[in-house]
């Protein structure tokens, strides 16, 4: 009875996960995928095994497929020039937001911290330096994003330059993600034994890390697709 309840629970989670597919794909295959997952659960329960391993493996496998389908769709969409305008706007907005945070948010935060703890000024200044250092990979990634969009507009989507830019974006996302991870760890160590609770900054860092991981995964998939197309083009040359 308990196993059937957990099967229901996993099935409802799986249905939620399937919503991350592009809409057209979801409408086409989600009911069948849900049915297949149910079949897998039933087979597993019949053989007297637990569902956790099956659910984990299927969720990871399906999540990878979701990333693939979404990046295929993204690639297809950005082949149409009109949509590059929207992406350019997104990149520009990200740049403006980052400039606002670095120009206004970070100095204000440091000033607040310094006035609250006049004796422990080291940490806020350290965070400020790190934030400005992280601007280097962040703006590099944005610049590379613009470059990719320019290449698409010039009909050079499937070129080595695009693959190189996507690789650079991946490295930048990894650097930023790893820095935030190191930041959390440092903050936890520094706040140990004090009354400070770093839950807020930790949450922000987790969100940034998740975003960086997603950017890394998407850029890997896109780079692979671009590389495949380059290889096909090279093979078809006489």
């Amino acid at each position, binding site marked *: 009875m308990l196993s059937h309840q957990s099967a229901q629970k996993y099935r409802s989670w799986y249905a939620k996960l399937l919503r991350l597919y592009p809409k057209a794909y979801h409408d086409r295959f989600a009911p069948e995928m849900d049915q297949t997952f149910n079949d897998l659960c039933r087979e597993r329960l019949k053989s007297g095994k637990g569902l956790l391993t099956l659910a984990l493996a*299927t969720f990871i*496998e*399906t999540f990878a497929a979701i990333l693939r389908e979404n990046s295929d769709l993204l690639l297809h969409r950005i082949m149409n020039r009109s949509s590059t305008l929207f992406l350019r706007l997104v990149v520009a907005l990200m740049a403006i937001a980052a400039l606002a945070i670095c120009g206004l948010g970070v100095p204000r935060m440091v000033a607040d911290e310094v006035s609250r703890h006049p004796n422990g000024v080291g940490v806020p200044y350290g965070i400020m330096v790190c934030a400005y250092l992280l601007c280097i990979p962040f703006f590099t990634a944005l610049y590379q994003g613009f470059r990719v969009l320019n290449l698409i507009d010039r009909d050079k989507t499937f070129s080595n330059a695009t693959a190189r830019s996507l690789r650079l974006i991946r490295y930048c996302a990894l650097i930023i993600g790893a820095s935030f991870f190191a930041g959390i760890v440092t903050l936890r160590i520094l706040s140990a034994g004090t009354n400070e609770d770093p839950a807020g900054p930790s949450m922000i860092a987790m969100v940034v890390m998740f975003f960086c991981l997603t950017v890394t995964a998407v850029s890997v998939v896109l780079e692979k697709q671009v590389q495949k197309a380059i290889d096909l083009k090279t093979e078809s040359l006489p």
Partner: protein
Amino acid sequence: MGVAKNSPDTPLTPAVLHILLALSSEERHGYAIMKQVESDSQGKVKMGPGTLYGSVGRMLDAGLIRETDKKVDPGLNDERRIYYQITALGQKTLGAELDRYREVVAIAKKRQVAVN
């Protein structure tokens, strides 16, 4: 990616090859394809729903397989399911892929004889 439209000469991805093989003898629904692939490969290839339906979508678009009417599987005897059937183009593509494999095996055998 992986299935070129209407071209039996393009090499297939392992997932597409296994699905075509599973459908070569009879029409099947998604779960039955998964089970057949597992049994054809003696349990070495375990396809998850993400890979299966990603490949099925591309194969439908490429005209290698087609959907048939929804019906109940007598073995599972519950909901109505969509069945998939291999098309003439799918048969041709599978044949061409198997020929390629035969050629590769023949070359490998020849080389081995030459080495020995």
